């Protein structure tokens, strides 16, 4: 039946057998899967393909953004006036705090100088527009419209008007990918505002966050606000991250299960601010040279060793 094609089937030039081809392609796919996931050394390939795909993707996004634009146009004067009123009102309510902020900051600076404490870093950054959410259903990422051209590098934190949104994980020439804090196993070092206790929150992937490794009797209440602790050298200290909504204390486990919701509008927003990278932290002391999160056990072991040596 295939003979009804106008070109006759190639009798002699067959190429490799299908099964051999399949093995070849599958081997390559699995190889780049592992290399991309574990070694992260294929960013150049990704960037060069993105250069081709990115404009097409922007074109494909235009119908949606046109619909949005039309909807906001139809929304019209009344809505805008109301929004304007609300904004003015909220500006007025925050005005007392804001007006005193400059004075407080300078006072803080002076006091810190008096105490010979290192000055707080100022937060600077650039505002970017969110183009679309990445289509990968297995992770929570967004794409913003500034990239290498604007000097953005991987690792910079992103915030919105309420709190921390996520972290830049990949940079393309004209766009960047931000992994949200609700992405699975995205980690943010935090501090409980009320008690000053430090910990880390992990994303759960379902829009919530979990505060892990807190003992079951820890001083934590529903409604506590978590802010970045700044111990990681990535996030500046003091940005709101999450609010605790549910605590499960089960005596069978040594840790409480503490669930939080993000304070920033992590899943719905139009613009985010990408903060400039922090100044380098002073070098860590030689004993605990690992990462702050993972160095617990070696540190303990070292302590034990020290104790043992003292006893000797």
């Amino acid at each position: 039946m295939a003979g009804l094609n106008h070109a006759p089937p190639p009798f002699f030039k067959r190429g490799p057998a299908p099964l051999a081809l399949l093995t070849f392609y599958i081997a390559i796919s699995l190889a780049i899967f592992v290399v991309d996931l574990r070694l992260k050394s294929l960013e150049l390939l990704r960037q060069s393909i993105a250069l081709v795909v990115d404009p097409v993707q922007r074109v494909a996004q235009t119908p949606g953004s046109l619909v949005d634009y039309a909807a906001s146009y139809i929304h019209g004067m009344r809505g805008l006036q109301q929004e304007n009123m609300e904004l003015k009102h909220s500006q007025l309510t925050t005005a007392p705090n804001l007006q005193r902020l400059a004075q407080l900051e300078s006072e803080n600076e002076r006091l810190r100088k008096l105490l010979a404490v290192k000055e707080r870093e100022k937060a600077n950054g650039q505002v970017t527009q969110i183009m679309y959410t990445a289509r990968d259903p297995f992770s929570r990422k967004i794409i913003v419209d500034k990239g290498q051209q604007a000097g953005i590098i991987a690792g910079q934190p992103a915030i919105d008007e309420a709190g921390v949104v996520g972290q830049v994980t990949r940079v393309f020439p004209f766009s960047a990918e931000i992994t949200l804090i609700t992405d699975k196993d995205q980690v943010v070092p935090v501090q409980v505002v009320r008690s000053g206790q430090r910990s880390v929150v992990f994303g759960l992937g379902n829009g919530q966050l979990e505060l892990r490794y807190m003992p079951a009797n820890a001083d934590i209440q529903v409604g506590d606000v978590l802010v970045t602790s700044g111990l990681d050298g990535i996030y500046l200290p003091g940005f709101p991250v999450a609010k605790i909504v549910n605590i499960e204390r089960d005596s069978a486990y040594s840790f409480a299960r503490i669930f939080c919701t993000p304070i920033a509008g992590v899943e719905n927003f139009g613009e985010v601010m990408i903060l400039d990278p922090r100044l380098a932290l002073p070098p860590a002391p030689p004993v605990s040279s690992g990462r702050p999160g993972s160095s617990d056990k070696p540190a303990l072991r070292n302590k034990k060793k020290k104790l043992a040596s003292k006893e000797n």
Partner: protein
Amino acid sequence: MQPTFSSSRILLPVRPWFIFFSLIAAALLNFLPTAHWPGVPDWVALVLCFWCVREFRRVGMGWAFVLGLLMDVADGAVLGQHCFAYVLLAYTATALSRRILWFPLIQQALQIMPLLLGAQIFQALMRLAVGADFPGWGYFIGPFVATLLWIPATFILLLPQYRPVEQDPNRPI
């Protein structure tokens, strides 16, 4: 070639640029911001599967691999995830192609369903194996919708190859 092997209607040969155009159009459909709705099919997988069944000498695993790379970058997924699924899909579709065209369209769609579902399941397995979170059951509705779309897709993608039913005897082609 005929629409199905049991039909007596003979089609014009396919134009290579149309295959290329349809695959690019499918990729564009995939890029639309509809991807987060449950049940939106993977258009590239559907069109690729169609051409692998119809024209396995022109479209095969090489095309599948390249399209997979494009989709990986466009999705922000791990490189190789779509490649793997599409290459496997292309291989199985090519293997089926000699048999499947003997059946009427509805039965063809039923035989295509496991391939499309398999492509989706393989992607999910690959990502779950390396610790991604479960995307929800809505992720697996897409292949079933794509199965239903096999019938309209066959009509649309074969349109340029149909000849008019009434032919002018002076102009046989």
